[in-house]
């Protein structure tokens, strides 16, 4: 097996700034109040993902999932430790990542594809497929600023799944789509998984993680809490115990992520 993603003691530190202006900083310093604070969004995280594995990345809000995904994507760099990946990376980090509200859907589609690393030739070949998958009809000609969050997600997802990648990242992609589109996305993601690509799937939905993933990594306040079987991971997070006060389950809320 070949290693697809390798993390060794990865730490990412964020600086919290309480005061920004000269006046505020001077006043704070005079009073002896801290002007900034540091905290570790990720602390000493190490794991290894083999090519073709599908990883469910779970954790409570603010546990560092998105930061980790951004680092794997190459948007952020770790402050300490090493993070290595093999091959091209594509995927969606938050819905409709980086769309330009004034540009039309078509223009954004082209730009987004280029940002994800498609060449002109590749895009020409896949353009019709992407448009068909997004299934937005004439809305595609309107500025993205007028899109609903679901429509944005459709467009973003359509582009991302058509990029030839070795690693596919998915974060909160399906949360806003309607049911038919969610089903289509799940199918596509399973295809991606079965085609031997590495999949990193961030989700709060135990059902979809169990269905999609062969391994679960749980982050807890920036640290690696659990790494292993999906069922055990979900149990570790206590996502399998139904909430006694609120009997509404994931499926009833229609919340896939």
């Amino acid at each position, binding site marked *: 097996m070949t290693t697809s993603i390798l993390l060794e003691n990865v730490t990412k530190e964020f600086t919290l700034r309480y005061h920004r202006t000269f006046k505020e900083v001077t006043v704070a310093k005079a009073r002896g109040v801290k002007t900034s604070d540091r905290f570790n969004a990720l602390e000493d995280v190490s794991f290894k993902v083999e090519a073709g594995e599908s990883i469910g990345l779970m954790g409570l809000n603010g546990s560092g999932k998105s930061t980790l995904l951004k680092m794997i994507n190459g948007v952020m760099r770790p402050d300490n430790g090493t993070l290595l990946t093999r091959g091209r990376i594509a995927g969606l980090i938050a819905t409709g990542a980086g769309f*330009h509200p004034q540009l039309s859907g078509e223009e954004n589609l082209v*730009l987004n594809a280029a940002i994800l690393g498609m060449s002109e030739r590749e895009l020409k070949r896949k353009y019709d497929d992407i448009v068909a998958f997004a299934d937005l009809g004439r809305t595609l000609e309107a500025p993205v600023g007028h899109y609903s969050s679901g429509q944005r997600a459709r467009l973003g997802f359509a582009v991302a799944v058509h990029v*030839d990648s070795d690693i596919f990242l998915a974060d909160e992609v399906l949360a806003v789509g309607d049911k038919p589109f969610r089903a289509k996305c799940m199918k596509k993601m399973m295809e991606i998984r079965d085609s031997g*690509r590495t999949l990193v799937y961030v989700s709060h939905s135990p059902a979809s993680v169990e269905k999609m993933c062969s391994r679960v990594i749980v982050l807890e306040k920036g640290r690696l809490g659990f790494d292993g079987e999906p069922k055990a991971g979900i149990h570790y997070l206590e996502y399998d115990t139904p909430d006694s006060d609120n009997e509404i389950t994931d499926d009833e809320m229609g919340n896939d992520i």
Partner: protein
Amino acid sequence: MTDIATDDLSRNPEDIPLKPPSADNGLFAVFQRHYLLRLLVQREISARYQGSFLGLMWSYINPLTQFFIYWFVIGFLFQLHKDLPNFPIHLFSALILVHFFNETFGAGTRSIMRNKALVVKMAMPREMFPVATMLVSLYHVVPQVVVLVIACVLSGWTPDAVAVVCLVLALLIIAAIGLSGALLFSAANVFFRDFGNIVNVLTNFVRFGVPMMYPYAMVHDRFGRFADYYLLNPLADAVVLFQRAFWVPTISDAEMAELEARGDVIMPDNLLTHGFVALAFCLVLLAFSQWVFSRLENKIPERL
């Protein structure tokens, strides 16, 4: 999954090296991804005059009105440079470069902030944005040069080979120094918005630091042997080079003889040497800016 099986995946996975996902950054990576760069430049150009009726015409109107203001105040009200042949061409050729630099520097500094959404979420060389701004500014230089060439031809322009070298050299100097300023300040602007205001202050000086409203001959006359220090400013070099390309070839032999008789030094000695040294300096500055940018870049996404 026929659409996924392509050249990229048919490679043996072992052949692809394990590397940091953010490795391919820097100015070289920007030009490797020329398709994306082209799209960004196109987007900027179409976005700049979006919703405007006159559109690209503004690229002509803006510098032309500036030109007429300067010409009216300096040439007509102050009655300066009456003895300088074709002063309007002298003025306009300088104005084009000043405009090019200020646009690159100013808009380039704001470029990272303006493209926040992309910078925070997508992995791409962030130098892309300052570079795209520079290219957009360069694109807007073209119509202005067209106007200038028409004016030059009407005034009896007889360019030589040196003029062409000077033209290219001048544009390269401005592009390099504008881009390095944009790189430095766009990254700094993320941390403190003050840098955007500093740029506004700096660009105010540019008009006076180059021989635009006054001829180089005046600098030579007043500064004497210190005139060489004036030429340490790469912007001044670029402007003088540009005037060598456009303004000097419009001066007739009789006018030239008159200027020489008066002892006016309209162009510095060893102009091309000055130009090449200035370009080399700007390229070093660009390398330095890239180095600073790479160091600051690490913290950009979390500060935006």
